[in-house]
């Protein structure tokens, strides 16, 4: 069949070609192909951190950009993130062994009363795709839950999500509690969710509102870099 002539054999591609092909395969949510690609690059002697950043993070950046620009929607991004996770599963133990640089750590959760975790999951996956360590608290988190996780995990970033107009004010409850306890300045607080907007994020005292997962990753990078710079100064 003619199709067979077009079949791409991943192991026959050059490194550069393979990385580009993996970007396409992430875009198409091809989980097995991503696993194969990761293993090929590792077999060729790539360090795990390069596989993560060049193949996976590079690919998810394209997915994130197209999600932001209204070219891809949630179903496609979920598939892509799923494929990325399969690649990450291979890389994670290796990254720990090789002491690869860490981008930062995030605790994330959907607020009390809200069951919606689609957007939150996307943020968590994209953040992992960008090299962050993510602790996902799931849905329906009361302020105590957030505080507990902040104490035990000592993250750089707290992420909160709400999809309902009835639950989004709860983000302010959490931020106000952090302020009362004198903990607010210890963390970068990012908020997101369909009914929110930038002004709302500012009004409740968050560092930033992120309109989607791609923006969340970029914002997190910017704030973490700023935090590190200010600590160095």
């Amino acid at each position, binding site marked *: 069949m003619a*199709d067979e002539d*077009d*079949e*791409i054999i991943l192991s026959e591609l050059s490194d550069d070609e393979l990385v*580009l*092909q993996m970007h*396409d395969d992430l*875009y*198409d949510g*091809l989980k097995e*192909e991503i696993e194969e690609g990761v293993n090929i690059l590792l077999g060729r002697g790539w360090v795990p951190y390069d596989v993560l950043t060049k193949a996976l993070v590079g690919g998810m950046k*394209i997915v994130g950009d*197209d999600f932001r*620009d*209204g*070219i*891809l*929607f*949630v*179903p*496609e991004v*979920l*598939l892509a993130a799923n494929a990325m996770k399969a690649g990450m599963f291979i890389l994670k133990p290796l990254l720990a062994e090789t002491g690869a640089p860490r981008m930062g750590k995030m605790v994330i959760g959907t*607020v*009390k*009363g*809200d*069951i*919606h*975790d*689609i957007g939150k999951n996307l943020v968590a996956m994209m953040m992992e795709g960008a090299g962050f360590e993510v602790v996902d608290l799931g*849905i*329906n988190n*009361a302020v105590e839950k957030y505080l507990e996780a902040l104490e035990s995990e000592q993250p750089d970033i707290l992420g909160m999500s709400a*999809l*309902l*107009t*009835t*639950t*989004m*004010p*709860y983000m*302010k*409850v959490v931020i106000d509690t952090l302020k009362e306890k004198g903990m607010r300045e210890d963390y970068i607080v990012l908020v997101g969710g*369909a*009914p*929110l*907007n930038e*002004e*709302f994020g500012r*009004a*409740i005292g968050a560092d930033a509102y992120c309109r989607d997962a791609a923006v969340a990753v970029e914002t997190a990078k910017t704030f973490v870099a700023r935090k590190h710079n200010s600590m160095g100064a």
Partner: protein
Amino acid sequence: MSDLLSKLLAERDWLMADGATGTNLFNMGLSSGEPPELWNVDRPDNIRTLYRGAVDAGSDIFLTNSFGGNAARLKLHDAQDRVAELNRVAAELGREVADAAGRPVVVAGSMGPTGEIMQPMGNLTHELAVEMFHEQAEGLKAGGVDVLWVETISAPEEYKAAAEAAALAGMPWCGTMSFDTAGRTMMGVTSAAFAALVEGLPNPPLAFGANCGVGASDLMRTVLGFAAQGTERPIIAKGNAGIPKFHDGHIHYDGTPELMAEYAVLARDAGARIIGGCCGTMPEHLAAMHKALVERPRGPRPTLDQIAETLGGFSSASDGTGDEAGPARERRGRRRG
């Protein structure tokens, strides 16, 4: 058809639906994170006040306080065993208010999304989704709703599951989706694709349309998208009163009653037969909308430019329909099967 909504649609040119539920209940002291549905039993007078607010402002249809009344949502509050009760009482309170209105008022049983992702992307099976919606529908039916009202849906699979549940309950229904992502639903459904989906159902809704989403302008663009498909089915427009802002510990939507009055008239001109508001739409907005709909003559179908001029700009350049189907990505060409 003998149901009240069909009768009113046959008699009247346009009908006015209600406004916000959550925003109104917050103003009565509901705290964030608490499930509004529990108030049906715990604070029934507040729910009566919510319903009366819409009826007194001239609404012909109002939605019951049961948006999150499915087992998946109530489970968060350990109230998954109370689906039948909470929905029935939401409907009974509605019946009481509607029957005392002195004119025909439709009680519509609100059914919001499960909040879960359906297979194959997520874990929720079609069977379980149908079962949860059906359980809720039976509760609303037992409480005496005139019609089921499925709203804020983003996935085609979930819309179909709700339709099937309505059929199982033997109830007429309406169903709207929320177009909040670059003019599409979160799951990527365009207005055109939704109009086609509706007509392909074995038990299509009495009316379909858009609710919530971004702002009134985006919602109007979606309504024009439905109308462009040449549908004969009544179109529902239920847009938010602007966007949410936080002032002095309260959420306030920036859309004024005057703006919502303009929106209502434009929605009718665009082809919507059932016009209401969503988040942020208070009784004073509804009263202004009703006055405008009664007093102002019908006009020609508005253009996108006219909508943007009157209600503000759109959140994205394209909504994925028409000749400008939006941006696309150049691919490397080779695809594997």
